[in-house]
């Protein structure tokens, strides 16, 4: 009977340890489900080119993450990209003329949406549309532009 007691204690400890490890893994290593549907409001924007923007990409303002991208789609009628984002409900005073650009974090980094505040007195709310957007910078176009500029500046 002594044997059973230590077995039970041992198993209990083991399971506890395992569960806390699981808990640790899900909370401490991930970006977490910090933005769940209930505490956020949804907003949409259209872009000519989304680059490599993916769902779950962060939405940041002044460098601080305030939401994330939930959906990236192609609109076959308007022939442009349609992005849906959710923003944390506490940020309910973002002017609705703010502009959304697709930026890259660091050199190897993934792309995210950066919001730049506008001056409007009405704010973004659930279902709002962001009208001022700036597409992702495509490297090839940039190089092309540079070459053309430097070419026209020279004696060609």
């Amino acid at each position, binding site marked *: 009977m002594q044997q059973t007691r230590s077995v039970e204690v*041992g*198993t209990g400890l083991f399971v506890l340890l*395992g569960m806390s490890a*699981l808990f640790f*893994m*899900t909370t401490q290593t991930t*970006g*977490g489900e910090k933005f769940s549907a209930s505490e956020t409001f949804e907003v949409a924007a259209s872009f000519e080119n989304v680059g490599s923007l993916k769902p779950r990409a962060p939405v940041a303002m002044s460098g601080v993450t305030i939401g994330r991208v939930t959906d990236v789609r192609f609109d076959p009628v308007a022939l442009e990209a349609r992005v849906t984002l959710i923003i944390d409900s506490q940020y309910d005073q973002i002017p609705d003329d703010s502009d959304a650009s697709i930026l890259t974090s660091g050199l190897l980094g993934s792309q995210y949406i950066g919001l730049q505040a506008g001056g409007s007195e009405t704010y973004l709310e659930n279902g709002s549309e962001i009208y001022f957007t700036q597409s992702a910078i495509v490297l090839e176009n940039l190089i092309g532009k540079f070459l053309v500029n430097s070419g026209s500046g020279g004696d060609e």
Partner: protein
Amino acid sequence: MKGLLQDLHSNVFEFVRTFGSFQIFFLRIIRHSPRVLLRRPGLVVKQIYNTGALSLVIIMVCGFFVGGVLGLQGYANLARFNAEDSVGTVVALALIKELGPVITALLFAGRAGTALASEIGLMKATDQLSAMEMMAVNPVRRVLVPRFLGGVIAMPLLVAIFTCTGLFGAHVVSIDLLNVDVGAFWQQMQLSVDIDDVYEGVLKSFVFGVVASLLAVWEGFNAIPTAEGVGRATTRTVVITAISVLILDFMITAVMI
């Protein structure tokens, strides 16, 4: 030539037959599982202890060093691109998605799987299973199912422990030894690792747990009741589990990417 074809034919046939028999065995175990869990949880608890708690040492030690090595290698190779700060990300993704489940499964097969197979094989060889049948006790329910369930429950927990110990090892190596910034290590990780990655790891650990436990119990139960037979069953457990785990890992990864 004819002989070769005949051999191939009978080998393939045998393989299919064994595989089918294995599936039926799996269903039998599943069928008895709910009743065992409800009526004799004590048996299952004891087996969780045997397969899980007793494997802690090997899992934690190996986890720590695997994490440490990942930290070292990750740092060394990322340094070429000046991306040392991403060490956290690299280590976490590798551990959570791949190395955690796979290495734990292999260690599990080696430690717990062999213990299960040899224990059951020996019970068969010394007539204990026969005695149970004579006493009107179903050996599948009394001996096999608790051990199977014990392994299935223990595996995901062991994987989680391995992964966390690995992260700790990487942390120690990166931050204390290689002077990576603590903030960068964890922050980069948190930005890049998704809950989906964790789900993938947990799913794998569950699947591997089922496969490893089932194979161990199967080999033991079907061992030839001699010293040589039990030894062979033990070796086969490790080999077949290893192969199956790696193949399944590939398949699951392919599907989830």
